[in-house]
């Protein structure tokens, strides 16, 4: 059963088409992350689901009920905003109960729900404070609580963590994940932070220009991006792209770039490898191996020069020049390289992705 279904939804602001015939099905109890660059329409889509924006065309179903024209409050959704959007003049308790009072629930019931939510979120000692007296993390928790008390089917999060600092962000990330495991609600979560997306999601929908580019599980998205955009967008440090051509070679295919030929043995194609005069080989930095000596691990390797070394704590990023192309390789931080060192590179082809330069689709 689908929890939220979006059918052919389009939305334009005047001449700007933000969403174009978008389709999306979110499963019951799923944690779906909408990921995409700024301005791609993530918030817009979320607002459409919430009923805060009227769609120009298409329909929205929540729990198989057509809610396209219903008021936000009648859709069974709760929403958490980036800026917390707490009512500044009300106490935490007031914030939590506002929605319930609007539904004219009995006082006992309200009390009980607030108790439960504040226990889950551990904000019991804060109930009498005003938002201004809370820290960022506490505010975010209250904001979640506001959705929680309303017992909704679907939680919508719009970049709930981007106003927080890195440390708090990773803490709250874990909390949200735990909350989802506890509640088992459907959650739709907008972010442009890929670590958040990768760690939280059951499935990720990568958006660009109002269109969903790929909808898959995190590791599938990471390892087998459907197109160039997804490949480049996901992963930090970013994937390396080598420009070249796919050619026949012996019993299989090979990738030829700048005179070198890299055999595509073990590559897992989406469709099939075909010859292509213009192709891109995408390799993530952790799948680029560099060694001081050629053939150190028995694989075919190519000579390259070290450009720059960026230590990042646990590991370092080494930028190397291979012919006229620049690549980054991720190495353990104990291995040190200096600018100008000559190294030998080899690629982990089974983990690489091959793209047709024209269609930008993965082969």
């Amino acid at each position, binding site marked *: 059963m689908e929890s939220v279904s979006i*059918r052919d939804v389009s939305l334009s602001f*005047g001449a700007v088409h933000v969403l174009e015939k978008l389709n999306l099905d979110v499963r019951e109890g799923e944690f779906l992350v909408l990921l995409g660059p700024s301005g791609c329409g993530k918030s817009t889509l979320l607002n459409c689901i919430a009923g805060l924006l*009227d769609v120009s065309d298409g*329909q929205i179903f929540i729990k198989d009920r*057509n809610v*396209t*024209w219903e008021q936000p409050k009648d859709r069974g959704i709760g929403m958490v905003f980036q800026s917390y959007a707490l009512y500044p003049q009300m106490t935490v308790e007031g914030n939590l109960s506002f929605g319930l009072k609007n539904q004219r629930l009995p006082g006992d019931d309200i009390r009980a729900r607030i108790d439960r939510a504040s226990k889950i979120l551990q904000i019991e000692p804060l109930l009498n404070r005003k938002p201004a007296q809370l820290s960022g993390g506490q505010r975010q928790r209250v904001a979640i609580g506001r959705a929680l008390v309303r017992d909704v089917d679907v939680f919508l999060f719009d970049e709930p963590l981007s106003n927080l600092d890195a440390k708090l962000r990773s803490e709250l990330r874990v909390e949200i994940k735990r909350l989802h495991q506890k509640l088992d609600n459907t959650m739709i979560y907008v972010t442009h932070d890929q670590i958040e997306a990768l760690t939280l999601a059951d499935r990720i929908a990568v958006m660009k220009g109002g269109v969903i580019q790929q909808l898959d599980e995190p590791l599938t998205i990471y390892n087998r991006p459907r197109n160039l955009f997804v490949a480049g967008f996901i992963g930090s440090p970013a994937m390396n792209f080598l420009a070249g051509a796919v050619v026949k070679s012996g019993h299989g295919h090979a990738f030829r770039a700048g005179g070198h030929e890299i055999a595509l043995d073990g590559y897992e194609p989406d469709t099939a490898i075909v010859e292509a005069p213009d192709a891109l080989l995408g390799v993530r930095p952790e799948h680029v191996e560099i060694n001081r000596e050629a053939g150190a691990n028995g694989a075919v390797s190519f000579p390259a020069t070290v450009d720059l070394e960026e230590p990042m704590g646990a590991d370092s990023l080494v930028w190397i020049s291979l012919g006229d192309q620049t690549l980054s390789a991720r190495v353990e931080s104990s291995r040190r390289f200096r600018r100008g060192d000559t190294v030998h590179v080899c690629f982990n082809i089974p983990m690489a992705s091959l793209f047709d330069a024209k269609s930008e689709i993965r082969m």
Partner: protein
Amino acid sequence: MARDGRPLQLFRNLNAKIAAIPMIFTAVVIFAGGTIWTVVYSFTDSKLLPRLRWVGLDQYDRLWNTSRWIISIENLMIYGVFSLVFSLVIGFVLAALLDQKIRFENTFRTIFLYPFALSFIVTGLVWQWILNPDFGVQSVIRDLGWESFTFDPLYTADIVIYGILIAGLWQGTGLIMCLMLAGLRGIDEDVWKAARVDGIPIWKTYLFIIIPMMRPVFITTLVLIASGIVRVYDLVVAQTSGGPGIASEVPAKYVYDKMFLGQNLAQGFAGSTMMLLTVLIVLIPWAYLEFGGKRRV
């Protein structure tokens, strides 16, 4: 799953629409309706009471052949240009001075702003009194020994409009200063730092960097001042009643006098239509700049 029909647009946000009725009423009936009514009747020969007897452009013909109207327009031009320039300059300079992290900022600001609380009637009366040649500035300075000192704007036809200007600036610059100050405070502090690191002198920073950055504020104040200028009436009435002679007449007063005193509504309407036209000439480029180019996000 069935495709539900789109509900009637009229009833979406019904409450908002109901709440906006006063605004719609004011906009359509009073402002648009009243304006159109006025324009229409300016083509008639209505006297004390409006009546629809068309006379074409006769009223405008007469208007532009009346020396009082011409003088009014001239006065408005002089008053307008000077008050625009001085309001902006004084307002900005004061704001810039107040923005120097000075002591007593609040006191100074209050002093500059308080005249804005007073009506034009009061302003006109006070300045009439201060500029009175027998009691005011002129006589005081003469008493101090400069026997030949002459400063009698209110009774000298050539400069009377400047006498009014002094009073008008006194009343109005405080608000302009306030807006400018708000604008200055809104400017990214880093720009100042960048300019200091670049070694740019303060006056240059203001002239070439800050003022261009404050364009929106300047436009807002410009429109504010301009609309006030076109409407100037009470001040003149209280201070000079248009005198000496008709040396300080302004269009608004002409319109009022023709409509009610001269019992020639149509003539007054023609005058006010011309004023409206002036306003449009000022406003439309502004509206175009402000709203035409980019939509509000």
